[in-house]
């Protein structure tokens, strides 16, 4: 490789920088450069933004504290009336020594904190005087007292405080291998001390493990209360940045508002407590992996949702090596800290033994509690430290905690954003959340099938996407970021955005081509889980065709079918139904030889069927699916994959109508169709068997039902694994059988499995997980643990009520189970209320003759007017 002519590069660079960015490319092309020089110049130019943001400091500012003459204090030296015994540690603010009073007044060991000269002694003293009264009132067994402020002969300000001989709380917990309960109890004491200080109007502002020492009696003591205020206000008044000036805050424990230099309230301490609890429970800090890079940790604290503590614990426990590599970062936070009384002691906690708290213990309540303390918005955290302590206490006593996961839509949106490429899963999440899985939306199933395929060909797909991404990338100088992370993310998502924008702009003169592009992109965005954009693009495609060819044209109607799916997936069922209806009405008379027309029509019929199913109009659902099937029977090759899905949906409708004979024959046909196409041992086969199991169950043949559900479950496990909503759905049905058979050990085993998979798949709940929860309630109830059962039922019911306005079978079942539970508790009045409500819902959704309706009615009658 020839040596690059750096002088030439520099000359060119200087010239290019003078130019407007839009002129640069032309200049570079015409400058007659060798390819090496040009490449070098272009590469350097990509750093423009980052380079401009760097180098804002000058060297003296950057190194001011090591310019200072060495201020080591010799052991034995007298400072004021204090004799220095040993150095305890040093940090950004100054060194801390163990010292002894020599004025004979009291035999007292103190921690003496020698501050840096830059602290204004007079102001410091004034502030100390002002705060002294408040600080003096902070008399609490878990708060180390601030004693005095003074100045050395050399004029260096110092503070003295109660000396605590102990270990930082995290280290203490690790050394003594404290388990979950003991850690939480210890932490509650910390919260109480913080709460006490808050009530006395003192905010700590720099809570972290090294400021919470645990003495040999196991009593936690908080250091440095009030100090940050004394120190920072002095700086704050001059209007310069507190954080950067003093290194007061340790970024790992600082709240978003502190990093953003916004006003700091007690909520900042709650946040820091959250980080500490996170660390005590999981062994790692929320953004520990980012702590090596200050910019990254800052951005993460301000913008990113922390990983769930249980998840963090799971990954860090399973990988002790990575825990070990985090050690240096921790070392650093200790040197940074304002007033450590202990010397850095990082190495002890990275022992390769497993953390004494198991990650499974954190799932659910503790995750929720910790994440509530870590909310970005101060007002969404616990209002006080006591509230936090109370919630932990409730957890310890097995009571429901106040912390709740974020609201459903919020989380769902997040999920979709985060997993934008996991197409199948993303699409089906909304279905699972709002509807459950009675029926299968063919288009969603198709997307999932495609996603399955895509996963199998992941490497190939990625390459293709990168290829497209790079082509688009090339056209857009905006992306020439040197940050590889950003570049990677940019590739697919932003490429699609750009393509959409470009199509809008460049293809305005060719509306039909533009419409086709919009449609393709619309489908791509649907696959990515971005329903909103997809909807917008498809609507534009429809508009284009309607403008050119009039309101009723084949192509725009074909697009409408897709728009319906899009709306369905956004749970906008009425609008979806309207689009399906328009599509069906237009395409029905045009059925013929056009494959696409036929396929869209069959899809729209099935989609409309799904909407009717939701409304409880099973008859029409069945008819629509039958019509779709008639069309689909003419399909060939891959297009026939639709048939078993349609048969399955028809079967579901027939089961709901109580027409079990008919349902069984339709479902068997589905299985036969699958077998003729290479085997039924796949998800479609599992879904058909699931409905067949339901048929047996409704006939009261528990054994047959168990057999069919088991087979379906095995198939689903094999083809899509246990973390799949279809698998979970089938498992739920199997659990129902086990509970009914009073086979509690099998029920428990399967429930535990589904609970954990469900939580992983839908961490914030879905219809599926709520059903699982209701079944767990049933599991308790049947074994006589009525209160526990009731709690699970109520929680599941709460989910159903919150997420579905219409009466539905799931809610009805949950009400029914809760009613039976209450009856067993002899709370007949309440029991009747729920049973009645369940009965009414069943009447509406399933009709009076459905076996389940009949059963609930009978049970309600048996309850009679018992008091």
């Amino acid at each position, binding site marked *: 490789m020839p040596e690059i002519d750096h002088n030439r590069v520099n000359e060119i660079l200087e010239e290019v920088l003078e130019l407007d960015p839009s002129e640069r490319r032309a200049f570079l092309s015409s400058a007659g450069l060798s390819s090496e020089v040009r490449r070098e110049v272009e590469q350097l130019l990509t750093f423009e933004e980052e380079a401009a943001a760097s*180098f804002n400091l000058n060297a*003296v500012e950057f190194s001011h504290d090591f310019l200072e003459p060495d201020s080591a204090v010799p052991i034995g030296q007298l400072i004021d009336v204090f004799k220095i015994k040993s150095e305890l540690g040093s940090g950004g603010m100054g060194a801390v020594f163990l010292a002894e009073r020599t004025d004979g007044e009291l035999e007292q060991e103190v921690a003496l904190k020698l501050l840096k000269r830059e602290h204004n002694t007079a102001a410091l003293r004034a502030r100390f005087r002002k705060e002294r009264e408040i600080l003096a009132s902070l008399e609490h067994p878990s708060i180390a007292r601030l004693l005095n402020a003074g100045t050395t002969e050399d004029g260096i300000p110092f503070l003295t405080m109660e000396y605590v001989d102990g270990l930082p709380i995290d280290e203490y917990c690790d050394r003594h291998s404290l388990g979950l309960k003991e850690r939480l109890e210890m932490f509650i004491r910390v919260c109480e001390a913080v709460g006490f200080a808050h009530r006395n109007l003192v905010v700590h502002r720099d809570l972290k493990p090294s400021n919470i020492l645990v003495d040999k009696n196991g009593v936690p003591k908080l250091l440095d209360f009030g100090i940050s205020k004394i120190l920072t206000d002095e700086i704050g008044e001059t209007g310069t940045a507190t954080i950067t000036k003093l290194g007061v805050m340790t970024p790992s424990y600082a709240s978003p508002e502190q990093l953003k230099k916004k006003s700091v309230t007690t909520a900042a301490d709650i946040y820091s407590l959250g980080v500490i609890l996170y660390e005590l429970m999981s062994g790692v800090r929320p953004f520990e992996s980012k702590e090596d890079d*200050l910019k990254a940790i800052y951005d993460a604290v301000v913008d990113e949702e922390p990983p769930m503590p249980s998840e963090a614990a799971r990954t860090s426990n399973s990988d002790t090596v990575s825990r070990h590599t985090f050690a240096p970062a921790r070392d650093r936070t200790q040197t940074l800290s304002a007033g450590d009384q202990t010397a850095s002691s990082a190495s002890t906690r990275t022992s390769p033994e497993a953390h004494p708290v198991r990650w499974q213990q954190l799932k659910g309540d503790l995750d929720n509690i910790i994440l509530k303390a870590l909310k970005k918005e101060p007002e969404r955290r616990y209002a006080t430290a006591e509230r936090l302590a109370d919630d932990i206490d409730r957890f310890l006593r097995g009571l429901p905690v106040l912390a709740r996961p974020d609201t459903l839509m919020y989380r769902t949106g997040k999920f979709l954003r985060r997993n934008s490429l996991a197409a199948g899963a993303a699409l089906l999440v909304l279905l699972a959340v709002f509807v459950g899985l009675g029926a299968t939306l063919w288009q969603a199933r198709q997307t999932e099938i495609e996603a399955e395929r895509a996963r199998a060909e992941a490497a190939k797909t990625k390459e293709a996407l990168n290829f497209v991404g790079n082509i688009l990338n090339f056209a857009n100088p905006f992306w020439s970021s040197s940050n590889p992370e950003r570049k990677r993310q940019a590739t697919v998502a932003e490429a699609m955005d750009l393509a959409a924008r470009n199509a809008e702009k460049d293809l305005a003169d060719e509306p039909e081509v533009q419409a086709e592009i919009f449609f393709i992109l619309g489908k791509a965005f649907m696959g990515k889980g971005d329903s909103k954009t997809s909807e917008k693009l498809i609507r534009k495609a429809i508009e284009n065709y309607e403008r050119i060819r009039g309101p009723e044209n084949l192509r725009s109607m074909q697009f409408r079918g897709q728009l319906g799916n899009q709306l369905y997936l956004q749970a906008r069922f009425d609008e979806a139904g309207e689009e399906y209806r328009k599509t069906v009405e237009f395409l029905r008379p045009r059925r013929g030889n056009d494959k696409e027309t036929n396929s869209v029509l069959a899809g729209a019929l099935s989609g409309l069927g799904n909407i009717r199913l939701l409304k409880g109009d099973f008859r029409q659902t069945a008819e629509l699916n039958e019509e779709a099937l008639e069309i689909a029977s003419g399909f060939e090759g891959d297009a026939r994959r639709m048939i078993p899905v349609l048969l399955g949906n028809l079967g579901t409708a027939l089961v709901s109508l109580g027409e079990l004979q008919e349902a069984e024959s339709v479902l068997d046909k589905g299985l036969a169709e699958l077998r003729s196409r290479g085997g039924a041992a796949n998800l479609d086969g599992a879904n058909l068997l699931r409905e067949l199991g339901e048929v047996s169950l409704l006939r009261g043949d528990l054994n047959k039902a168990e057999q069919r559900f088991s087979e379906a479950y095995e198939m689903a496990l094999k083809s899509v694994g246990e973390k799949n909503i279809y698998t979970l759905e089938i498992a739920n049905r199997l659990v129902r059988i086990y509970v009914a058979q009073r086979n509690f050990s099998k029920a428990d085993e399967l429930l535990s499995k589904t609970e954990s998979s469900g939580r992983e798949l839908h961490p914030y709940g879905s219809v599926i997980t709520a059903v699982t929860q209701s079944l767990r309630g049933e599991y308790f109830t049947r074994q006589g643990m009525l209160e526990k059962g009731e709690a699970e039922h109520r929680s599941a019911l709460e989910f159903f009520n919150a997420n579905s306005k219409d009466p539905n079978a799931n809610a009805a079942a949950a009400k029914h189970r809760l009613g039976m539970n209450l009856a067993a508790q002899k709370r007949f009045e309440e029991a009747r209320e729920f049973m009645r409500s369940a009965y009414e819902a069943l009447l509406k959704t399933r009709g009076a003759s459905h076996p389940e309706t009949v059963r609930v009615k009978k049970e309600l009658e048996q309850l009679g007017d018992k008091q």
Partner: protein
Amino acid sequence: MRRSKSARSTKMIEQSSSEITQILQEWNEGDEDAKERLMPFVYDELKRQARLLMSRERKGHTLQPTALVHEAFIQISKQSGIDWKNRSHFYGIASHLMRQILVQHARSRSTAKRGNNQIHFSIDEVQLPVEQRAESILILDEVLTRLAGISEEQSKIVEMRFFGGLSNEEMAEALDISVRSVIRKWGAARLWLYRELNK
């Protein structure tokens, strides 16, 4: 201890003031070698100023290299008592000496483990622990020496800006180029620096 040390260096400068006067005179008259001979004095003065500024109790003060360099200039010209024509040249020298002083300090504070050290020198980096910042200064020094091999002027500009805290105008005067050139060269230099520092 500290007081006597600074007293000593003050004294030293006083003793040498006639010598400084002599050197400055020669430099003013165009003797470039005089620059070399002036350096030790400027160096001492800068260190003295740094210490003075560090210990002066001023509310919310930040140590600015500009202040250091200017203060050193004032002191030296006061002592020499001559009409100073090469102020900006002096600043250039002072910047270079500041670099030496800081590198020296950094060396004593650095934990001497080199390698993948991300440095940006942006405002937030003040939070970095002393050792890492010391390390950053040493790395910057190395990179800057390499830059001098490619463009002496760019390297000077970085030096004057970062270590001397000089303004664009002062740098333009010291290098005898236009302000616009300074800005342009700084723009190019920092691209290169950024890349090298983040390699």
